[in-house]
């Protein structure tokens, strides 16, 4: 298994069952969210940072997206979710995988809100960079 896949599985496990979003967590969801508040996990660019004769160091872009829908305090709930996700992903920079070198919080996007539905809908993207190493000849080892 490509180590990027192992990382996504590990990150998904870390953000599942957080206090605010609970089990409303999905990876690469392509349909609109019904159960809210929720988190979606998306994989971004997986750039090569360094290459030697033996290994390759990469930086995997991981996006965690918070979704909320409520009448009041929707911005407060987004900040609460951001706090819980940050704590979950920074508690152990390896995410339980010995080939991860670091987990870097790159920054969070500007919150987006819409009042065009039956309740206010909000969304905010949290960006993390997972630095990891794999063999020169096999990204799964």
């Amino acid at each position, binding site marked *: 298994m490509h180590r990027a896949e192992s990382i996504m599985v590990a990150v998904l496990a870390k953000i599942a069952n957080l206090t605010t979003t609970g089990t409303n967590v999905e990876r690469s969801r392509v349909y*609109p*969210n019904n159960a809210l508040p929720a988190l979606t996990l998306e994989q971004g660019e997986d750039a090569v940072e360094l290459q030697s004769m033996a290994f390759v160091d990469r930086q995997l872009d991981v996006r965690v997206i918070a979704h909320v829908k409520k009448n009041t305090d929707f911005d407060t709930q987004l900040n609460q979710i951001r706090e819980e996700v940050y704590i979950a992903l920074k508690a152990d920079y390896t995410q339980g995988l010995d080939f991860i070198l670091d987990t870097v919080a790159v920054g969070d996007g500007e919150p987006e809100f819409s*009042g065009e539905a*039956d*309740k206010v809908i909000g*969304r905010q993207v949290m960006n993390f960079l997972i630095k990891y190493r794999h063999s020169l000849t096999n990204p799964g080892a």
Partner: protein
Amino acid sequence: MAVENANDLAGFFDPSEHGEVATIGASTINGIFSDEYSEILDVSGSVPVFTCITSELDEISPVVTAGTAIVIKSVNYTIEVLQPDGTGVTRLTLQDKS
């Protein structure tokens, strides 16, 4: 000259035809209610809208403004935006308070 006269409008919003009765405070008003499915910011929902005759809305006391509670089909909403179209009809954008 307006396309519709008062009788035309009243018929259009008649609850025995296409209309619904909404309750605002102690008053009632006829209008057309829609609650179409929507997808906004990757979240599914609906867009509740009540369209009614502007002059009937203006007669309600206290004055109907953004934030006024309105009940339609036993569901509690709040009026978020009043959009008079200039031809005697006002579109109320609603928020579900449940």
